[in-house]
């Protein structure tokens, strides 16, 4: 298959060999699971259980609210012991409503929805409803509710379901292992998704550094004429949705549009596997494969982890932390988030847990920018990071936005490559958040003004009504006076 070049990007040290040959092992069910009600993009789910309830494996604990949301299920059977605000798996360390489930050790299944015997005979709505009620979200890390993304075929004529097996983040091997060990499940899930989307073709893109996965997938897809496996060059951020679309189809998604607008929908390989489970067996999303790696981990592993497992348990299962670690990261080292507390749980978007030593992180104090322009030449989005950062440093956020701040996907390439160790992406994250905050303030001022005007109008109406009433009363009394006078 003909490929197309993508601009910029970097070639970080991948260090995937730490876990790439480690088969996926299942984590024994932990004694207590912590399930935040929001593990996805969109609105938080609302709890449908109360403290003291006994729940079974696969039972819904919190229901999705609105269109863009996802439910949360019990990963094992047990008792709800607490529902409270607890530290969220988020860099802010702020609290989130969390359902605490004490496992009873029986791991007893609830009554699951019936398997869909022939998904290809069902309508797209049926498939989407099943995916939605199974709580499946994008497992690549973006955690966007998959059912919503499977509805993109309604408005767009789709040609390709592009399954993302690039796994361009260093260290992470969870998708690699899933493709190697569960190739048939992934292919089946992908075909179901393509059917739901109305996309005639499935392309599965895998970076060339995963030959075994490519081989396994080729074998599993050999009977499917409309499924193509393609090897894409090893180049970070190849796995970014728009860039992968460009590399495989040559189509450049316009700014502020979706890849669906150019006929392509991108899903992660692990998501396809989850959809296979939901459709064929009625199983909701209860666990995911997590890569636990880094030189700070005694025994790096790929683990199938029940959602809600505390990171502490995961580290313990891997022999614990080895010596001095500099950073503990959830996700990959490029776009992952720092872990603020090892008590926080694994959630749907946790693709990796990395304990990184000082050598691996290679942090140094920031030096003055020497305008070398490397960030400009490697930016996969064609932006000018050096200039945006300079504007943001001077609080000229609007100007930074005018030259493309909102087009930045925070891939981290510029920060990674900067010889002066300027935290460019940190500047952009700050500016994006600050601009959002300012926007909220602006909307609040607008709202305040509208409310003040409404109140003034109301007070005016009340005053007018009083005046009218007084006038009427006066007129009446005058009338009666006249009547009296007449009388």
């Amino acid at each position, binding site marked *: 298959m003909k490929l197309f070049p993508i601009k910029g990007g970097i070639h970080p040290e991948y260090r995937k060999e730490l876990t790439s040959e480690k088969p996926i092992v299942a984590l024994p069910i932990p004694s207590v699971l912590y399930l935040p009600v929001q593990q996805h993009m969109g609105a938080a789910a609302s709890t449908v259980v109360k403290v003291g309830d006994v729940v079974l494996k696969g039972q819904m604990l919190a229901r999705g609210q609105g269109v863009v949301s996802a439910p949360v299920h019990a990963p094992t059977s047990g008792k709800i012991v607490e529902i409270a605000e607890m530290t969220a798996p988020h860099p802010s360390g702020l609290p989130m409503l969390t359902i605490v489930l004490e496992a009873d050790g029986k791991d007893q299944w609830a009554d699951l929805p019936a398997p869909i015997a022939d998904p290809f005979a069902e309508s797209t709505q049926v498939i989407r409803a099943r995916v939605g009620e199974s709580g499946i979200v994008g497992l690549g890390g973006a955690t966007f509710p998959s059912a919503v993304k499977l509805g993109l075929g309604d408005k767009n004529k789709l040609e390709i379901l592009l399954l993302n097996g690039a796994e361009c983040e260093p260290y992470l091997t969870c998708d690699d292992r899933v493709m190697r060990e569960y190739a048939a499940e992934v292919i089946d899930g992908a075909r179901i998704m393509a059917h739901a989307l109305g996309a005639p073709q499935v392309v599965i893109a895998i970076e060339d550094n995963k030959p075994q996965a490519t081989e396994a997938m080729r074998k599993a897809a050999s009977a499917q004429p409309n499924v193509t496996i393609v090897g894409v060059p090893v180049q970070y951020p190849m796995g970014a949705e728009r860039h992968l679309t460009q590399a495989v189809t040559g189509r450049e998604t316009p700014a502020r549009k979706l890849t669906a607008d150019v006929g392509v929908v991108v899903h992660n390989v692990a998501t396809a596997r989850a959809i296979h489970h939901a459709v064929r067996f009625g199983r909701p999303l209860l666990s995911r494969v997590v890569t636990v790696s880094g030189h700070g981990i005694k025994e790096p592993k790929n683990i199938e982890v029940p959602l809600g497992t505390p990171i502490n348990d995961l580290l313990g299962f891997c022999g614990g932390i080895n010596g001095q670690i500099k950073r503990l990261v959830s996700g990959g080292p490029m776009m992952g988030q720092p872990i603020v507390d090892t008590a926080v749980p694994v959630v749907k978007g946790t693709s990796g847990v990395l304990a990184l030593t000082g050598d691996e992180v290679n942090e140094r104090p920031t030096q003055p920018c020497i305008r070398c322009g490397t960030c400009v030449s490697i930016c996969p989005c064609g932006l000018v990071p050096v200039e945006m950062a300079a504007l943001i440093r001077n609080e000229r956020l609007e100007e930074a936005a005018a030259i493309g701040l909102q087009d930045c996907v925070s891939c981290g390439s510029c920060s990674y490559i900067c010889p002066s160790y300027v935290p460019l992406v940190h500047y952009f*994250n700050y500016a994006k958040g600050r601009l959002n905050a300012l926007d909220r303030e602006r909307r609040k001022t607008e709202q305040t003004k509208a409310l003040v005007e409404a109140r003034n109008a109301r007070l005016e109406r009340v005053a007018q009504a009083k005046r009218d009433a007084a006038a009427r009363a006066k007129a009446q009394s005058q009338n009666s006076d006249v009547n009296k006078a007449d009388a």
Partner: protein
Amino acid sequence: MRIAVDKSGPFTHAPTSVSRTMTLVLAALLPATLYDIWLFGWPAALMFLVTVLSCVGLEAMCLYLSKRPVGPTLADGSAVLTGWLLAMSMPPWAPWWVCFVAAVFAICLAKHAFGGLGQNVFNPAMVGRIAVLVSFPLQMTTFVRPAPLGSAGSPGLIDSIGIIFGHSAMLDSLSAASALGYIKTELSRGIPVSQSILTAPDLTSLALGTHAGSFGETSAFLILLGGLFLIAKRVISWHIPVAVMGTLFLLGTVFSAINPDRFTPGTFQLLSGATILGAFFIATDYVTSPVSKSGQLVYGFGIGFLTWVIRTFAGYPEGMAFAVLLMNALTPIIDHHIRPRAFGRTRKGEPLPLNRGNK
């Protein structure tokens, strides 16, 4: 275990640093420098040392006065590089005080008055060179014929100290004009370029440096090797050097074909003066050149064009330094107007039109 979080990702970093970049540039300059020292003898070695040490000393002083950490900043190697490039652009036997004044202009005025590394608008080494060129034209245009170390014409260490730190009559006896200067002088005497070029150093001599000229302009070949090394190491990209040299070569070739009596040929433009040094090492200075590749092409073209104009029509025989400074002034404007095309957008910054896909 709770962990303090002070930084967003990424949580890994390429093994790069400013000092690594600077070290690579210095390494690229080293062969040419050693060759030039051999070529021009002890006085050149002393001149080189005086210039580099002045720059480093002045940098330390400026940092101290502005209450910034001296040690770590000196370690980035930028002052050494500025001094090194400045020395490359000086006459090989320039007296110590000229070197020192040039260093003052380069480090104190061009660099630290603007706020230090990364903040300067103009290339410090070129500011230093231009300042002394217009102030001390005699000292700055007195070039010596190469006399390799150990040869009869090469002064000993003691004599060399006299040449650089005192006044010695030897300089006058050995002085010669640079190739560009020679052509210019002859042209002003009414001798056409087509004739004078025959008596000027030939291309081999220009490439190997066996002719009079600035310390760094006389070994075009080794400088070129150094430049290619930098491109191979991805310290610089090809855009600026190719644009500078291509423009000079094209203009030289075209105009020399039109009127060989008035204009020097493209090959001569390429190999004489500081063309190669300027194209690979001076014009590519990170701080003062545009950050985008397309901007660098425009910038390189501007330098090539201005260098040719100054060499051909102005009073000075060499125009590289002036051309670089003039284009430095345009760098912010180039950066403002020439940006890379953003993903999913047109050059103007509008979202790309949707060509397909909508029902």
